[in-house]
């Protein structure tokens, strides 16, 4: 089962957990299932049908461009991180 790492500022909703195992094979499913466990999480992560602007998902430490549609392999790590640009 994928393991989701909880960003510090999301702990106001999830409580003091650093990581949680959540079922799902796409980022969308992961967030839906997180919402069932921690109501309010989805609003923090999504803006309509997309991830919030400026937010990115790293799956097994690789940021994906596919957002909510990204596939999440079993036993992978999922991080919600800040999107990075460059100069």
């Amino acid at each position: 089962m994928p393991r989701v790492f909880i960003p510090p500022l999301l702990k106001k909703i999830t409580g003091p957990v650093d990581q949680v195992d959540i079922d799902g094979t796409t980022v969308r499913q992961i967030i839906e299932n997180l919402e069932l466990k921690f109501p309010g999480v989805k609003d923090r992560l999504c803006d309509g049908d997309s991830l919030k602007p400026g937010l990115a998902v790293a799956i097994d430490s690789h940021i994906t461009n596919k957002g909510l549609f990204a596939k999440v392999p079993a036993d992978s790590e999922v991080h919600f991180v800040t999107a990075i640009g460059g100069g």
Partner: protein
Amino acid sequence: MATSESKKKYKVIGTRPIRHDGVDKVTGRAKYGGDVNLTGMLHAAMLRSPHAHANIKSIDTSKAEIIPGVHAVVTHADMPDATDKVVNLGEGTVNLKHLGSNVLADKKVLYRGHAIAAVAADNIHIAREAAALIDVKYEVLPAVLDVLEAMQDDAPVLNADVRTEELPAGETSGDKPTNIAKHFQFELGDVEKGFAEASVIVEREFKTATVHQGYIEPHNATAHWNADGHITVWTSTQGSFSVRHQVAELVGVPLGFVKVIPMEIGGGFGGKISVYLQPVAALLSKKSGKPVKLIMDRTDVFEATGPTPGSYIKVKMGANSDGLITAAEAYLSYEAGGYPGSPIAPGCMCIFACYNIPNGKIDGYDVCVNKPRTNAYRAPGATNAAMAAETVIDELCEKLGMDPAEFRLKNACKEGTRRIDGPVFSRIGMEETVQAIQNSEHYKTELTGPNQGRGIASGFWFNCGLRSSVTATVNGDGCVALLEGSTDIGGSRAAIAMQLAETLGITAEEVIPTVGDTDSAGYTDVTGGSRVTYATGWAAYEAAKDIQRQMIAAAADQWEVDPADVSYDDGKIIGPNDQVLTFHEMAAQSVKTSQPIIGRGVSEHEEPGGAFATHAVDVEVDPDTGKVTVLRYTAAQDVGTAIHPSYVEGQIQGGAVQGIGWGLNEEYFYDDSGKMSNSSFLDYRIPTCLDLPMIDPILVEVPNPGHPYGVRGVGEVPIIPPPAALANAIYQATGIRMQQLPMSPPRLMHEILKKRAAENGGS
């Protein structure tokens, strides 16, 4: 993915062919934005705010409009209402309302130089005269220029719509406007426990000045709004597709109605991603019915375009007696300028990334101040952060009695190390860069005189992947026309062409690269984030693989065999019965007997591989003036695979020089009213070749497992270590720990005199 090809087999990669655009560049024939000249073209001038903070009570353009030769005047009122939405421009997000108000001020000016109105006329002299006649009534407001002052409850507030957004995944809080636009927080382990385990702890505060990217070519744009509603824009930009998106949104036309033609670019370093002039030139063209050209002068560039933020940073780090870091904590506040959007997030995510730190906490704040809206600058946010962390590490080493290279090696992150912001590293080369410095002739050579010191520092930058497209057309003579959408800032035409050539088994000279406009090239994100050689190179690799497949199919048809039994190797198509066709034979056949061969490749891979650098510098400090002379400089960098080593070395040297300028001299000087006092290159001191020794690059090649040829971005990380390395060297030379950038002669002299006074008992 695993690196699929060993370097030993490369025939093109790792060589140093002459760049394809070289002749045009050195003979002056390359066309830049300033060279655009169209029939009937008008010239435009901008009216800019003399105040750092003011409400605009009224704008009267009537006197300007009646000047003979004036064809159009525009203000924010001529722009469609930008919606208050945040859009993704590929390499970052932007609030359209803020972007539009930055392009032409809406009701308020937030920094001196903020654009208010523009005039298009028969020539630039008429345009300037008319712009000066525009009557703007201001209600001048108090300005706030310091990031910490701007965070106070009683500070003048710049934007009525800004509330504090907590990221990642936090909430937007507060019921009243604030200058604190964003708060980022990252945490790993138990910081209190980590500090309790430390035997030495160092905590210091730092301030860094606002600095500019310092590109030589000013911003420019020429636009023609055709009668059919289609707009063509000729401009100097790092991202033509990003300009297309921004212009379309701000002038209110469909994306496909805007065609952006990227001209050659005289430097960008992150500062030529946002639009400034392009929408204004388009609006002037719409109003006048003629093409309009708009160019900034140097003062405009300094006063109105993206500097990189000044900052306040506090860092606390602890290590045990074995020299292992046990905990690290940082607080960073970055100036956003007039509108939110400083690179505070990457600053937070890079500050401790070079090290394996089990317990860490980082808080970062994006704060509006009355300065130009900041923009990216080479590894945005990371240089400020490294100045703080890397000098604190030097102090830890001193307290522990450890060699700073040994300490870095002992704590270096490696494959599997978890960063404080969460993700773990894949195969990276931090350790190797430290070892390269340790093994360098430079590090083994003793300093030779008084007032000399040596410092080292390391830096990390993420690099980006994003999206790129390439098409490659095989000509009958075996040359391949390569069309890409990445504007070429640092020799990327050559680096992309070489990856295509390597994959096809032809020479780099047989590939003819062209940077296309937005109607001809496939979608490509900006040239930024050190991504082009990685991502557009990968797209070129894919295009070459597509060509291979087409050649295999054509040969299989000809030989009446199954394509699965045909292979492509080193420029040859090989059949099952010892049949062989060379690439050139196949190319010749393709225009005669088979269908044209056009390869297509795209890249959206996001495994760019982190970039690490460790630099060593020797300095001599003049104890009577505070002037720092750089005696020797060596920069070791994990470059993955150096596609064209000369351009990799050039990036390292250029980045190091910009970092040295940031460290020693560069600074926006403001008076109390918010007016910049040094808005020219005479007074804004960037290093020249007379100031510096040869920057000696060491290419450490740890191939990126996330690229077919092991490419890592190389352009940004070399700017990160220099200020901290210089500060550490200055400490060795003088015994003074500098905690403010730049470490300019007056600032260092002040500290030297203070130290002398203290040593003399305060006399």
